C-alpha cells in the first residue's frame, strides 16, 4: 500500500467542554456554538447559517446568552452596551472550554432577542404563505410558529417590489419574500464560483440582484433555491405546481453523471414534480448540478415506449405485441442470429450495475459471446487495457474526501465542471484551501479558472508529451500527496492513458478514472467489456473464467470479444447475425453513420429502450424498460462507490432491463439466475472482486519520434493577453495561474483554414436527457467556436463572427469567441451535430469556412 501524505496524518481532535442549557457537551475545538447545540438536540433558530457556507452572522436570529470564565475562572456574562446582557450570534461564536450558553430554552434574554429578530424579519415579509412554493417547508414559517410572537405589531405599509424577476431562465426571485440571509449569494460565490448574483443596493433597499446582461447562469444555480430559507427563490419549472404536503418524497441517486449524487425525488400521482439534493457528506454534500435537479422530464416525453413491439414480417412495420410474444420473438431471433455469425451487445453508459450485470451475463451464457461493450463513445484497446489493469475491480479508490486535501490535482482529458459537476465542486472547495489544480487541456476553461487552476496547454495530440514531462516537474510537485483524475476522453488520444498510468507510477500520485455517464463504472464492474468479466476478471485468465463459470453454472466463452467499434464494423459488414442494444444512440457511437449502417445490416436487432430512437426505428423487437425512478438499482460512482437506490414510483409496472433479459433468457431456455434487482445485486456481490493477476498497465510505445520536441516558441505561453481578452472560457479575465510551458510534441502544421479540433460535451447540451426541460436548457452555455487570438487574426475575423466548421461528417455554424488555445486549434462543444467527428485520433482536422462578409 502506498502511504500518502495528505490522508494519513491523523489529526488529534482536541475537545472543548461547555454547557448549553445546563447540558454538558464536548465538541472538537473550533466547533460553532450553534452546532454544539445541535449535538445535544437544541435547535437554535437560524436563517443565514448554513453548515457548508462560511459563517456570516447576518440575520441575528440565533442569538444566545453566553458566559465565559475569566482569567480567574469566574463566569462572566458577555455584556454591553453597559449594563445589558449582549446575546451572541451562536452561528459565528466558536465554543470554548467552560463556556456557559443559554439558548431560548433557558434564557429569557435570548428568547426575547430571538423574538425581536423574528418580528423584524416579518414586518416586511408578505403574508402569502398559502400561495408560496415554500409554504409548508419554510424555515421562516416554521420558526415563526415556534419562536415568533403571535401578533404583529407592525401596522405600516410593507416594502414591496414588482414580482417576480427572472434571475436566469430557470430561477425566479421574489424580492419581497427575501430575508437577505445571503445564503444564495454566498453559495454562488463560495461554492459554485459563479458570483452572478450579488447583494445590490443598501440598507432597507438591499436586495439580491443580477447584472442584467449577465444572468445567473450557473450549472449549480438550483442549489440556491433549495437553501433559500424562504420562498424567495423558486424554479420556473416547479413554481406553483405543487404543495409540499401533497408530495411524496423518496431518496434516490442522480443518473446524469458518474458522481453518484444523492437526490430526493418528490412526486405526486405518478409524476415527478421536482428533485432536490440529498445530504450525503461523503459524496455530494448538499449540492447537485442543475441537470441532476431539473432534468427529469425526459422520462415522460411523448415518445416514451410503453408497449413491446415487434416488426411485422409482412408490413415491415413495428406493431405492438404482448410481452410473451415479444420476448419469444426476441429470444428466437437472437438465438438464430447467434448461430448465424453471433450477436453483439451494446449496453451504453446509463444502466444500473444490476442491469449491466444482466447484459454481461446474458451475452456470455445466452448468446455465448464476449462481444459486449458499454462504451458508447470513442474507445481503444489501450483504454480497455487501462480499465482492466487500473480500474475494474479496484473497489473504492480515490474518494471525494481525498479530493479535499491533496497538494496537487492533475486533470487529464477531463473537464470536471462539464463532465462531473460534484467532482468540480469538491475540487473548487479544495482549491480554496491549499490544493493546486493543473489541467492538461487545450485552454483555460471557466471551470479551471474558478479553481484558480494552472493550464498545462496541450493541443489535441500533444497531451502525451505534456503528461510525460510532469513526472519531474518541480512546480507541479506531483507526488504521493497528489491525485490524477483522468477522463474518458483520454481514450481518444493514443498513448495518453499509458502516459498517465506511468506518471502515477513514478510520482506515487493516486489515480482515478472519471467517466461521464452514471452507468459507465458499474458496467465496467459488471463485465460489459469484451475482455473483462464481472469484478475485473480478465476473460483471458482461465482461472477467472472458472471462477465466474462456477457461479453461473455455465462455461464462459474464452474467445476474446469485439469492442463496440468492432461490433459495429462487423455488423455493418454483415459478419454479425444480430445486435442487442440497450439505451444507446447511434450519435453516441464513435461513427454514427457506421452505427446506422450496422443496425440496418444486422439480421436481427433487439432494442431495450425508454424512448423511441434511431435504434428502435431499426429494431426487430423493441422492449420498453423502466426509467431510473421506476426501478431499484445502483450506480457505481467514479470513486468505485456503490450507490444503491430504491424504486421511487412504487406503482410503476415498467420493467428493469434485467427483468426483460431474464424473460428473453427464459424463452431461450436459459435461466439467467435472477429476476429481480436484489437477486442480481446479491449474485454480483457473491462474485466479488478479482484477486488474481491483473492485466498489465498499458505502456507508452518507446521510440516515439515526436517525443521531446519543443513546442514552437511563444505558443502556449500567454499571460497578459489571455487575461485581457474577454475570453469565453474564463469568467472575464483570468485569475487562473499563468500557464506553464511544457515540452510538447510538435504536430505537423495544418494547411491554412484547417484546424485541429478539441471538443467535449457541455453539461447542458442538446442531449435527449434534457428533453422537456426547456428552462434548464435555456441556461446552458450557447455553443461557440473558440479560437486563439492569433488564429483569429490570421483568419482576419473578429470575435463574434459567424463561421462554419466542416468536420469529417457534416458541419456546424456558430459564432466565434477567443480563448487561450494554441494557434491552429479549434474548440467547440460536442453536440449532436459534431458528435460524430471525434474519432480515436489526435483531434480530427476540421476546416473552417468564413461566410461571405464575416471577415474583418
Amino acid at each position: 500500500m502506498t502511504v500518502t501524505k495528505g490522508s494519513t496524518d491523523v489529526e488529534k481532535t482536541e475537545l472543548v467542554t461547555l454547557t448549553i442549557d445546563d447540558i454538558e457537551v464536548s465538541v472538537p475545538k473550533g466547533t460553532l456554538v450553534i452546532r454544539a447545540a445541535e449535538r445535544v438536540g437544541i435547535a437554535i433558530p437560524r436563517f443565514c447559517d448554513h453548515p457548508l457556507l462560511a459563517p456570516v452572522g447576518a440575520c441575528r436570529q440565533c442569538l444566545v446568552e453566553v458566559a465565559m470564565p475569566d482569567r480567574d475562572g469566574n463566569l462572566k456574562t458577555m455584556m454591553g452596551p453597559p449594563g445589558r446582557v449582549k446575546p451572541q450570534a451562536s452561528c459565528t461564536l466558536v465554543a470554548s472550554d467552560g463556556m456557559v450558553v443559554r439558548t431560548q430554552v433557558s434564557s429569557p434574554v435570548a428568547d426575547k432577542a430571538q423574538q425581536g429578530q423574528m418580528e423584524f424579519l416579518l414586518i416586511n415579509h408578505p403574508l402569502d404563505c398559502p400561495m408560496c412554493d415554500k409554504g409548508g417547508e419554510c424555515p421562516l414559517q416554521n420558526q415563526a410558529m415556534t419562536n415568533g410572537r403571535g401578533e404583529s405589531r407592525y401596522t405600516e405599509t410593507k416594502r414591496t417590489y414588482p414580482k417576480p424577476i427572472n434571475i436566469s431562465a430557470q430561477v425566479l426571485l421574489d424580492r419581497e419574500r427575501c430575508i437577505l440571509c445571503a445564503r444564495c449569494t454566498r453559495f454562488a460565490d463560495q461554492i459554485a464560483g459563479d458570483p452572478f448574483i450579488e447583494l445590490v443596493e443598501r440598507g432597507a433597499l438591499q436586495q439580491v440582484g443580477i447584472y442584467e446582461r449577465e444572468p445567473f447562469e450557473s450549472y449549480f444555480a438550483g442549489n440556491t433555491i433549495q437553501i433559500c430559507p424562504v420562498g424567495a427563490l423558486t424554479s420556473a419549472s416547479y413554481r406553483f405546481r405543487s404543495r409540499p404536503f401533497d408530495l411524496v418524497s423518496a431518496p434516490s441517486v442522480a443518473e446524469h453523471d458518474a458522481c453518484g449524487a444523492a437526490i430526493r425525488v418528490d412526486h405526486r400521482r405518478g409524476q415527478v414534480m421536482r428533485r432536490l439534493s440529498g445530504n450525503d457528506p461523503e459524496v455530494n454534500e448538499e449540492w447537485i448540478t442543475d441537470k441532476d435537479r431539473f432534468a427529469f422530464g425526459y422520462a415522460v416525453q411523448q415518445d416514451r415506449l410503453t408497449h413491446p413491439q415487434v416488426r411485422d414480417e409482412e408490413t415491415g412495420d413495428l406493431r405492438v405485441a404482448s410481452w410473451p410474444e415479444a420476448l419469444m420473438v426476441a429470444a428466437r431471433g437472437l438465438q438464430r442470429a447467434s448461430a448465424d455469425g453471433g450477436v453483439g451487445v451494446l449496453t451504453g453508459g446509463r444502466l444500473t450495475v444490476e442491469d449491466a450485470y444482466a447484459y454481461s451475463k446474458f451475452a456470455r451464457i445466452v448468446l455465448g459471446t464476449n462481444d459486449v461493450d458499454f462504451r458508447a463513445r470513442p474507445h481503444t484497446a489501450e483504454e480497455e487495457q487501462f480499465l482492466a489493469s487500473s480500474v475494474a475491480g479496484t473497489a473504492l479508490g480515490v474518494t471525494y474526501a481525498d479530493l479535499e486535501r491533496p497538494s496537487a490535482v492533475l486533470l487529464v482529458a477531463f473537464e470536471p465542471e462539464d463532465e462531473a459537476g460534484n467532482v468540480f465542486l469538491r475540487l473548487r472547495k479544495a482549491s480554496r484551501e491549499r490544493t493546486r489544480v493543473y489541467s492538461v487541456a487545450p485552454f483555460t476553461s471557466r471551470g479551471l479558472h474558478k479553481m484558480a487552476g494552472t493550464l498545462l496547454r496541450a493541443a489535441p495530440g500533444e497531451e502525451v508529451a505534456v503528461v510525460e514531462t510532469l513526472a519531474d516537474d518541480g512546480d507541479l510537485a506531483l507526488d504521493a500527496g497528489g491525485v490524477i483524475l483522468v477522463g474518458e476522453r483520454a481514450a481518444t488520444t493514443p498513448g495518453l492513458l499509458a502516459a498517465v498510468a506511468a506518471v502515477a507510477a513514478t510520482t506515487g500520485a493516486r489515480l482515478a478514472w472519471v467517466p461521464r455517464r452514471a452507468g459507465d463504472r458499474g458496467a465496467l464492474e459488471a463485465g460489459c467489456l469484451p475482455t473483462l468479466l464481472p469484478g475485473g476478471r480478465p476473460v483471458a485468465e482461465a482461472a477467472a473464467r472458472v471462477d465466474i463459470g462456477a457461479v453461473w453454472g455455465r462455461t464462459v466463452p474464452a474467445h476474446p470479444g469485439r469492442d463496440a467499434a468492432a461490433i459495429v464494423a462487423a455488423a455493418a459488414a454483415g459478419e454479425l447475425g444480430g445486435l442487442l442494444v440497450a439505451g444507446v444512440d447511434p450519435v453516441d457511437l464513435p461513427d454514427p453513420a457506421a452505427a446506422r449502417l450496422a443496425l440496418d445490416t444486422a439480421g436481427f436487432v433487439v432494442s431495450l429502450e425508454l424512448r423511441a430512437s434511431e435504434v428502435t426505428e431499426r429494431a426487430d423487437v423493441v422492449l420498453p424498460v423502466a426509467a431510473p425512478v421506476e426501478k431499484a438499482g445502483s450506480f457505481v460512482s467514479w470513486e468505485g462507490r456503490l450507490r444503491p437506490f430504491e424504486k421511487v414510483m412504487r406503482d410503476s409496472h415498467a420493467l428493469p432491463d434485467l427483468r426483460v433479459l431474464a424473460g428473453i433468457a427464459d424463452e431461450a431456455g436459459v435461466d439467467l439466475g435472477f429476476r429481480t434487482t436484489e437477486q442480481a445485486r446479491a449474485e454480483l456481490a457473491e462474485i466479488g472482486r478479482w484477486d488474481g493477476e491483473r492485466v498489465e498497465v498499458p505502456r507508452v510505445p518507446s521510440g516515439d519520434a515526436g517525443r521531446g520536441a519543443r513546442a514552437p516558441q511563444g505558443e502556449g505561453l500567454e499571460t497578459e493577453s489571455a487575461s485581457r481578452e474577454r475570453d469565453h472560457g474564463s469568467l472575464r479575465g483570468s485569475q487562473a495561474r499563468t500557464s506553464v510551458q511544457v515540452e510538447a510534441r510538435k504536430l505537423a502544421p495544418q494547411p491554412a483554414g484547417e484546424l485541429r479540433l478539441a471538443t467535449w460535451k457541455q453539461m447542458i447540451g442538446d442531449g435527449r436527457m434534457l428533453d422537456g426541460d426547456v428552462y434548464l436548457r435555456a441556461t446552458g452555455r450557447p455553443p461557440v467556436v473558440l479560437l486563439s487570438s492569433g488564429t483569429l487574426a490570421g483568419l482576419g475575423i473578429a470575435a463574434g463572427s459567424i463561421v462554419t466548421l466542416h468536420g469529417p461528417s457534416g458541419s456546424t455554424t456558430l459564432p466565434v469567441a477567443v480563448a487561450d488555445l494554441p494557434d491552429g486549434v479549434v474548440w467547440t462543444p460536442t453536440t449532436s451535430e459534431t458528435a460524430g467527428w471525434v474519432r480515436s485520433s489526435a483531434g480530427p482536422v476540421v476546416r473552417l469556412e468564413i461566410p461571405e462578409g464575416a471577415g474583418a
Partner: protein
Amino acid sequence: MVDALTPVLSAHWDSDRPWTLESYEATGGYSALTTAFALSQDDVISMVKDSGLRGRGGAGFPTGMKWGFIPQGPEKDGTVKPHYLVVNADESEPGTCKDIPLMMATPHTLVEGVILTCYAIRANHAFIYVRGEVLQVVRRLQRAVQEAYLAGHLGTDIHGSGFDLDVTVHAGAGAYICGEETALLDSLEGRRGQPRLRPPFPAVAGLYAAPTVINNVESIASVPCIVRNGADWFASMGTEKSKGMTLYSLSGHVARPGQLEAPLGITLRQLLDLAGGVREGHQLKFWTPGGSSTPILTDEHLDVPLDYEGVGAAGSMLGTKALQIFDDTTCVVRAVLRWTEFYKHESCGKCTPCREGTWWLVQTLSRLEQGRGEESDLEALLDQCDNILGRSFCALADGAVSPITSSIQYFRQEYVDHLENGGCPFDPARSTLFAPAEALA
C-alpha cells in the same frame, strides 16, 4: 495648571498656507522622523503607550496598545505578511467636523503621523481612506503626499533610515458605514462596505487578510507631537485616564460655533463660555457629546467632564467630541426623526435588526412626529430599540437607537405633546440660523 485651551493640532491653522510642506517644515514639521528613526520600533510603540493617547475616532481605544497587537515576525507557516496602516478619514458621524478641518489646514501633520506609525508597526504601505464628499480635502491630501514623496519623507530608504513607505490617498464614495473599521476595509478592497466578522481582528487579518492598524485621523495626527515632545508632555494634559489635548467641535445654536482644542476633561459649560454661549435669548435644551450616535444630554450635564469616563458616567459617550448644541426652539422629536432617517439611509443592510429596525423606527417616529398614535406607542418604540441595541452586527444600529431612547428619557412629555397637539408644536423657522429677529423673540 494647564491652560483651558491648548492648540497643538490646530496651532498653525492660521499660518500662511499651512498646508504646504514649506510651511509645515518651518514649524518643525517632519522633525519627529529623526527622533523616531533613532529609536527602535518598539520604543516608538512604548512611547505612544506611555502618552496615554486614546483613539479619537469614537471608541477611545488606547492607540499604543492597538499597535502592540500587530504580530511581529513570520506567521505560523513561516510566511511574512506585509503590515498595513489604514487611516480612517471617513468622518461622517453627524456632528463630527474635526478631521476634515485638520486635513484641510495641515495635512502634513497627518502624513508625518502616518510615517511615524508605519515605522512603529513595521508597515510599508499606508492608505488614507478619506470620504469622497470633501473635494478640497482630497486635493490637499494628494498634494501633501506628493510633496512628502518629493522631499524624501516618503518612498524608499526615508532619510537614510532604510525604512520604505508608500502612502495612497483613497477617496470613498459616500457611505457612513465605511467609517466602521471593518466595513472600511471591505470598501478599500473594492467591495460593498459591510462590516466583517470579528475575529479575526484587523490586527491579525485586516486589509488583504494581513495585519492592519486602523486609526482615526486625529489619533494619527497626534503622534508627531508625542514623538517630538515626549509622552510625559502629552500626558500632562487631560485627566487621569483620558490624556492629552483634543479637538472639540461646537456646532448649532451657539453664538460662535467652531473648533476648540483643549485638554480632555473640559466641560461644556467652559466651552460654551468661550464660544459666547448659547444663541442669544435662548436656553440650552439638549446636546450630543460625541455625534448623533451618543445619547443626548441636557443642561443638567453642563459640568460633566468631557472625557471618556465623565461622559460615560453621565450615561452617554464621549465619541467624537462633536458637541451639537440645540436650544429651546428645537423640536426634539423632529431632531430624533431626522437622525433616525439618517441611520436608515446609512444602514448597510447586512443585519436584520439594523436594516429592518431602522426602517420601522422611521415609520413609528414619523407617525409620532405627526401627532398620530398613542402614548403606548412610545413603549412599543422603546421595545423596538431594545430589540436592536446590542443585537446588531456592528455598532451603527446601537448608535441609531441612542437618540431615541435618550430623548424619551429626557423629553418624554414632548412626544406626548405631539400626540396631544395632533402635530409638532414647534415653528421650525425659529430654530434656523437666519431666523428673523421677531421669530426669535
